[in-house]
C-alpha cells in the first residue's frame, strides 16, 4: 500500500489524466465483451461462458484480415462480422438446444466450445503467440494533455467504444428491434404469441453479442498478443462487470466497466499489490448493498 503516492496522484493533473485514460482503456474493452454477455443473458436467459472464446476468435480473425489487407479498418470489420456470423451459427446449431436446460448443461456446452475453439485456433494459427503490431496510422507519439500522456490509439479506441455504446443504446431504446428485444427480455411467450419469429430474434441477439466480442478482440489485437486461451481472463472480468452493472443492463455494463478500469488504474498507484483484490472487493460491496447490480431492475 502506498497512500502517499495515491494522494500525490490525485493532486497531480498529469497523473489524473494518465491514470484516467488508462482506466478508460481497460474499461472500454471490458465493456464490449461484457455488454455481449449481458445482452445475451438479458434476452435469452443464457449465460454464455464461451464469450471469451469469441473475443479470442475476433483477435485472430483481425490478425489474418490485417495480414491480408494491410487495413486495420478492414480487420476490425472482418473480425466483428465473422464472429457475429459464428455466433449466429453457434446459437442455432447448439445453444438453442439448451435454452430450457439447466445452467449446468449450458455451461457444459459452452465449455466444450471453449476447448474446441482453443484447439481450432492452435490448428489454424499455431500454438505460439502472435502479434499484429500497431497499424502505421496509430504509430504516433503519445499526446500530452496537462502533462499527462494519452496514446492516440487509445483515444481512437475509447471513441469507437463510446460510439458503439451509444449506437447500441439507440438500437435497444429507440428502434422496433430494440422494443421487441426488451419485450422478449420481459415475456418471451407473449412476444412469440404476437407472431414474432423468436428463433430469428434470439439468433440476432446472440449474433450481436458475438459481434461485439469479436470487435473487442480486433480492437485489442494491436496491443495484446493473440494466443489460444486468451479469452479466459477477460471473460472472468467481464462477468464481474456484468454482476456489478446488473445482469441484462447495457448502461450498467458500461458504468461498471469504467468503474473497474479506474479501480485498476488508480489502484496500481496506491495499492499495487492489491488491484485484483480491489476489483473483487468492489463486486462484494455492490452485491451487499444492491444484490441485483447497480442498474438492474427488480430483485436479484
Amino acid at each position, binding site marked *: 500500500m502506498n497512500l502517499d503516492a495515491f494522494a500525490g496522484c490525485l493532486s497531480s493533473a498529469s497523473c489524473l489524466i494518465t*491514470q484516467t485514460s488508462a482506466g478508460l482503456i481497460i474499461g472500454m474493452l471490458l465493456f464490449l465483451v461484457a455488454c455481449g454477455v449481458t445482452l445475451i443473458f438479458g434476452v435469452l436467459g443464457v449465460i454464455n461462458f464461451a464469450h471469451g472464446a469469441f473475443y479470442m476468435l475476433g483477435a485472430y480473425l483481425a490478425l489474418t484480415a490485417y495480414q491480408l489487407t494491410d487495413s486495420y479498418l478492414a480487420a476490425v470489420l472482418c473480425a466483428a462480422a465473422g464472429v457475429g456470423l459464428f455466433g449466429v451459427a453457434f446459437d442455432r446449431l447448439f445453444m438453442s438446444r439448451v435454452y430450457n436446460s439447466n445452467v449446468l448443461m449450458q455451461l457444459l456446452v459452452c465449455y466444450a466450445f471453449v476447448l474446441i475453439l482453443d484447439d481450432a485456433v492452435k490448428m489454424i494459427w499455431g500454438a*505460439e*503467440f502472435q502479434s499484429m503490431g500497431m497499424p502505421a496510422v496509430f504509430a504516433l507519439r503519445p499526446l500530452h494533455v496537462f502533462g499527462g500522456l494519452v*496514446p492516440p*490509439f487509445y483515444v481512437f479506441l475509447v471513441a469507437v467504444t463510446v460510439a458503439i455504446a451509444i449506437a447500441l443504446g439507440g438500437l435497444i431504446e429507440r428502434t422496433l428491434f430494440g422494443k421487441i428485444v426488451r419485450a422478449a427480455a420481459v415475456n418471451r411467450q407473449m412476444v412469440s404469441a404476437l407472431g414474432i419469429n423468436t428463433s430469428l430474434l434470439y439468433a440476432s441477439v446472440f449474433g450481436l453479442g458475438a459481434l461485439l466480442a469479436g470487435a473487442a478482440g480486433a480492437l485489442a489485437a494491436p*496491443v495484446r498478443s493473440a*494466443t489460444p486461451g486468451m479469452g479466459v481472463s477477460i471473460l472472468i472480468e467481464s462477468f464481474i462487470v456484468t454482476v456489478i452493472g446488473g445482469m441484462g443492463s447495457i448502461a450498467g455494463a458500461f458504468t461498471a466497466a469504467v468503474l473497474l478500469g479506474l479501480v485498476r488504474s488508480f489502484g496500481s498507484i496506491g495499492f*499495487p499489490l492489491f488491484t485484483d483484490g480491489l476489483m473483487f472487493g468492489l463486486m462484494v460491496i455492490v452485491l451487499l448493498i444492491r444484490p441485483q447490480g447497480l442498474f438492474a431492475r427488480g430483485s436479484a
Partner: protein
Amino acid sequence: MVDSGFGRPVFGSPGRRSVLKAGLVAGATLSMPFVARGASKQPIRIGQPSILSGRLAQLGISSRNAAQMVVDAFNAAGGLDGRTIELISRDSKGKPDEAARVVRELINNDGCQIILDSEASSGAFAVQEVVRETGTLCIHADSETTSLTADPKIRAPNAFRCARQVLHDSIVGGSYAAGIAKAQGLKRWMTCSPDYVYGRDSSSEFLDYLKMFEPSVEAVGATWPKLFAPDYTENVTRILETKPQALYSALYSGDLVSFIDQGNLYGLFDQVKFFAINMADYTTLHAVKKLPAGIYSCNRYLSTFPATKSNAEWSAAYDKRYNVLPLNWAWQNALAMQFLVEAIKKTGSDDGKVLAGALRGMTVESPFGAKGTVTMRAEDQTIVDYAIGWGVTIPQAPFVEGMQAADWTVIAARETEWKKQKGWA
C-alpha cells in the same frame, strides 16, 4: 486350480511340452545372453512434461523440438546396443497441478525411466516433489529459479538442472547494468516482472547485485503484472508516474511483447533505459513489430553468441528442420538430452541411480559453452560454464550487438558468497 471335471486340470499345471519349451528358452537365454538383450530391446522411455499450449507454448514446442533432434541422432547412430530412446512429450498447459499429474502418468502408465522436465518454474517445483517421491531420474531443463537446486531443502539427489540460473544471470546482469548506471548516472531503478517465483527472484537478485556493484543505485518501485496478463496499461502508467531512470524486467515471451507494444504507445522506452533480461530470444525479437533500439538484454539464445561455428551450425540445423529459429529453451533441452545420452553411453545403462552417478561432475563439449564445454557441477547438480552475455538490441538482424561475455570465475566467486550468506554452502 480350476478343474474341468474330467480329471485333467485346465489351468495351473504345466504339461510336458510346456516344460520342455520353457527349458529350451531358459537354456538358450543363459548360454546366449545377447538373445535376452535382443528380446528386451525395448526403448528407453524419457517423459517430457511441458507447456505445449497457451501463450507459453513456444517453451514446450522448442524444448520438444531440440530434445527430439538429439534423440534422433542417438537412435540413428544405433542407440544403446540397439535400444533406442523414445521421447514422450505431454502438455501440462502451464498448470503446476497438471504438471504433477502428467509426470505421475508418464512414470506409472507410460513406463518412463527418466523425466526431462521442460516446465517453467511454477511447474518444475511440482515435478521436483513427484520425482523426489518416486526416485525417478530427472533433469529440469527450463526452470531458472535459483532455489530449485541451490537450496539444500529443495534439492533432490535424483534431480539435476540443465538450464541457466537466475542467480548467474543476476550476477552478470547486475555487473553489466552497474557499469551502464555508473557511466550514464542511472540512480533511480524500478522493476516490472511477472508475479510468481521466477519473476520475484529475478528482480530481487538483479537489484541485489546491481546495488552491490553500484551502491549509489536506488530501487524506487516495483510493479508485478500477473503471468499471462492481457493488459499492462496499469503497469506502464505506474512506471511513468514513478519516473524511474531505468527499468528492469523479467517478463518474457508473449507477455514481454504485449508489454513493449503497450509501453510503445506511451513512449515509455524513450523515457527509461530498459533492461529486459529475456528480450534476446528470436521469437520475441521477431514478434515485436516495433522493436525499440537500445534495450539491454541478456542472451537467451543467439546464433551469434557465442560466435562459434558449432553454435551457428546447430542453429542452422534446427532452423532447417523446424523452419524456425531456436530459443533459449531449445539449447537448454538439447544440452539436457546430450547429458543424458552421454551418461547412457558411458554407463551402458538406463538405471536412474547409475546415470545420476555419471551425470555428477560430467563435462560435455557443447556449442553453448562459454569456452566450448559445459559442466554439470557435482555439488548442486546444476550446469556451469554456459555462455552468458549482455548486449543492446537493434531493430534488424542480428538484433543484438555489443555482446559482453561473462567471466565464470567472477560468477562462481559471487555465487559461493551468496550461498554462504544464505547458509546453503
